[in-house]
């Protein structure tokens, strides 16, 4: 039928305009698709990876334990001894990293907290298999020297394993290794059970009911979801923009078709098919790209999180969402302008210039403002996290954290550290492990963590807890304040006298040095070794900072991924709508030419308008970015560190976006304006 031929012909006869519309629509689908693809794969696979390890539901710690007796308890399904030796591993001259050494009874029959062999062979006596995510911490070599129970032990690396239930070693800065069975002092029994129970002479630990980095992963997945949603809004606005521009160019023809007998419903159908065809083409372009980008990003994130992707299959709802976004969103947002354009009176359509320019410019400005807001908010949130790290770092007025394995006279420890020349100040802290939290006793000048509520403890018997412990709502502690800290598990702080009366404390020290250098840490290490003290770790604050930053890499990557997509989508929005706008004004530019405007005057005028829209949208973007930032600061902080991160504005984001919109505004309007000035005046005046 002729009318459908017209629809196809319109698409084909204006390839530039159609391509721009397809590209703009595709950008939206791509943004949403890539985000949702990555999010759906990771949500499924991270959970699957962790569940596949058959994680322990209880861990029993005891000197000796009747394993069969535990196995016979009601509700117990599996038990497996898996002692854990905490030691250190030498990575250089007097440079050590914490080592978590898991002792496995039978590598051929691992039932709980499963691991898989990634390369090489299972370790035999005198050998160690390194967890693959720790590998980058070691500086190569087939032999390592471990320090376990005060003894140096050379071990040959037999291969690498994947322990999906462990936090990535490179992130926690802890080397995880697996060794074959040996006699140990403390038994650790992994249990899978339907219920919890008490067992005589054993401490029962309830491991977290998810991956150790579940909070971090949830923050990251939340960000992907939130940015996915924002990209969806952005893409809908972008499509509305494009359709407005396309229809503005069709209004006269719609009027002509009405005069030759077309009914409104016929015109609506033609316009909708026009939009649907463009949408279908955009899907063909965007869906495969979104799939590839989403999968690539999922692979990258999985490797960062030490997870394996058993499948990169995308669930049907995600594909259907993309289809819906790709077809339904354009059709839905097209309905109103189509309805309006087809109802415009013939008189108006054929007569006055029917282009509703102000409305379209408002739409373009809004689209860009939303894009800009997402971009600025992403950089604000990133800045807030950096600031949180800075604050945490500044709150610790020491350079080196020294911990011992056993309780040793703290005076002795401080005395030895003081012998190192670069040391300015040493403070002894004591630490004890309680059920689900660490208890730290200090009378400190070296710790000033920011208070979220209440005050610092003033007398014995008062406790200050960090936000991670506050989230657990601890009982039986006289809490006078809550502090915010990064990179620590649930912790309670009290005076040394308060903690000193508790059982099982170990001494450690915080050291302030003159040079803040790595050499002092090595000197302290050597001094303690000479004195035969059981060092658990000597950690520089800068290493701690790096560990915290490494935990945030994945979140930063989500923010960067989203910001890049927004720049792409927003850039296309401006490019397409300004181009289409200038094209639709060809006649007006022809008039300007006819009354003597030079191409230069015309181009300057149009480019100035493009830049003006960019700048206007930038002002709105800053306004919209504020509540968006506040929400994301709250959400990401609460999920990850159990407290919102501080609201901050990153001038960097604001100015980068300004530069981008000005540049894009100028580029997108310059080319069509330049082209318009090349069209002979007679043609421009009769342009439809």
């Amino acid at each position, binding site marked *: 039928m002729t*009318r459908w*031929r*017209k629809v196809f012909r319109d698409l*084909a006869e204006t390839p530039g305009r159609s391509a721009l519309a397809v590209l703009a629509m595709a950008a939206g689908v791509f943004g949403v698709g890539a985000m949702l693809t990555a999010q759906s794969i990771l949500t499924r696979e991270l959970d699957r990876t962790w569940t596949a390890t058959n994680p322990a539901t209880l861990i029993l710690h005891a000197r000796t334990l009747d394993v069969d007796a535990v196995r016979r308890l009601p509700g117990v399904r599996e038990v497996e001894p898996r002692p854990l030796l905490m030691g250190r591993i030498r990575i250089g001259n007097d440079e050590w990293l914490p080592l978590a050494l898991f002792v496995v009874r039978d590598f051929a029959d691992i039932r709980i907290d499963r691991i898989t062999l990634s390369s090489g062979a299972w370790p035999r006596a005198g050998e160690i298999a390194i967890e693959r995510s720790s590998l980058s911490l070691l500086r190569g070599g087939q032999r390592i020297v471990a320090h376990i129970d005060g003894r140096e032990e050379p071990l040959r690396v037999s291969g690498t394993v994947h322990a999906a239930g462990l936090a990535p070693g490179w992130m926690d800065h802890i080397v995880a290794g697996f060794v074959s069975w040996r006699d140990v002092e403390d038994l650790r029994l992994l249990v899978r059970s339907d219920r919890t129970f008490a067992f005589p002479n054993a401490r029962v630990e309830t491991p977290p009911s998810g991956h150790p980095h579940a909070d971090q992963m949830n923050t990251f997945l939340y960000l992907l979801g939130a940015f996915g949603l924002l990209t969806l809004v952005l893409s809908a606005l972008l499509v509305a923009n494009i359709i407005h521009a396309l229809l503005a160019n069709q209004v006269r023809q719609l009027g002509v*078709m009405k005069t030759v*007998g*077309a009914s409104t419903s016929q015109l609506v159908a033609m316009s909708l098919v026009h939009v649907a065809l463009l949408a279908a083409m955009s899907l063909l372009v965007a869906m495969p790209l979104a799939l590839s980008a989403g999968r690539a990003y999922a692979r990258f994130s999985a490797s960062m999180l030490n997870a394996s992707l058993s499948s990169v299959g995308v669930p049907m709802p995600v594909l259907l969402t993309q289809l819906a976004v790709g077809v339904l969103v354009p059709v839905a947002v097209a309905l109103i302008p189509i309805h309006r354009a087809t109802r415009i*009176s*013939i008189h108006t359509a054929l007569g006055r210039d029917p282009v509703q320019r102000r409305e379209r410019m408002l739409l373009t400005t809004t689209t860009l403002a939303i894009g800009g807001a997402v971009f600025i908010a992403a950089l604000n949130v990133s800045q807030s996290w950096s600031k949180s790290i800075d604050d945490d770092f500044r709150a610790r007025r020491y350079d080196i954290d020294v911990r011992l394995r056993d309780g040793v006279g703290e005076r002795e420890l401080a005395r030895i550290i003081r012998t190192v020349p670069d040391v300015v100040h040493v403070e002894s802290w004591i630490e004890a492990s309680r059920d689900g939290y660490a208890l730290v006793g200090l009378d400190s000048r070296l710790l000033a963590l920011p208070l979220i509520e209440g005050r610092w403890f003033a007398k014995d018997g008062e406790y200050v807890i960090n936000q991670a412990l506050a989230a657990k709502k601890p009982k039986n502690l006289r809490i006078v304040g809550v502090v915010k800290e990064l990179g620590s598990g649930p912790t309670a702080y009290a005076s040394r006298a308060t903690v000193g009366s508790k059982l099982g404390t170990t001494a450690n020290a915080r050291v302030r040095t003159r040079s803040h250098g790595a050499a002092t840490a090595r000197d302290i290490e050597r001094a303690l070794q000479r004195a035969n003290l059981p060092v658990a770790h000597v950690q520089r604050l800068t290493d701690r900072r790096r560990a915290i930053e490494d935990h945030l890499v994945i979140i930063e990557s989500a923010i960067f991924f989203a910001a890049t997509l927004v720049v792409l989508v927003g850039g296309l929005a401006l490019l397409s709508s300004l181009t289409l706008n200038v094209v639709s004004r060809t006649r007006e530019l022809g008039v300007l030419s006819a009354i003597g405007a030079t191409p230069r005057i015309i181009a300057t005028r149009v480019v100035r308008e493009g830049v003006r829209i960019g700048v206007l949208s930038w002002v709105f973007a800053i306004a919209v970015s504020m509540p968006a930032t506040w929400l994301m600061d709250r959400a990401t902080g609460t999920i990850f560190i159990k407290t919102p991160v501080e609201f901050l504005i990153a001038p960097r984001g604001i100015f980068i976006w300004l530069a981008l919109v000005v540049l894009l505004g100028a580029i997108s309007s310059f080319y069509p304006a330049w082209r318009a000035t090349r069209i002979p005046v007679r043609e421009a005046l009769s342009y439809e």
Partner: protein
Amino acid sequence: MIRLQSVTKTYDTAAGAFHALRGVDLGIEAGELVGIVGKSGSGKSTLLNMLGGIDRPSSGSVFIHDRAIERLRTSELASWRGRSVGFVFQFFQLLPTLTALENITLPMDFLGVLPRKQRRARAMELLERVGVEAQADKLPNALSGGEQQRVAIARALANDPPLLLADEPTGNLDSSNGAAVFALFRELARDGRTIVVVTHERDAPVDRVITIADGRVV
């Protein structure tokens, strides 16, 4: 065939109310070729729009075949217009992405007046009648102004309407093409079609000239 009773049309503009028509009474018989003349802004195009149902009067009535068309609903009006009125414009208004032939089959498609297979043949007949059958498969921008206007007239005849309305149809043509268009109108009127032409040419070859000034018939 056409009867206008006290038709007024007022537009609200930024400068205030603009009275395009002020109580026009008029009658046109079937088969008449009528010219409406007047200065720019006199109201002649508004009058034509009233006759074609493109615009509705602010007051008064437009009867065509004793039917008050301003009372028709928008959809009824569209369908009536498609069957009863053919339009010819000064700037031709051919759809740029359709060939000459397709521009003529489009109105038939919208109204479904003929079986699909016969539409092409009828469009060819019409093109032959206006003398541009050789241009059937060309796009409008490949045709001269005179050829485009002939195709536009053929399109106006596509659904065989009894009434043809032309707004300055020769305004964009040279004198020989202009004369040819009027000759065509004369021929069509002879077949019994009513033709109303808005024109600047006071000596246009028409049966009757209606002069409009300041929204009134004088």
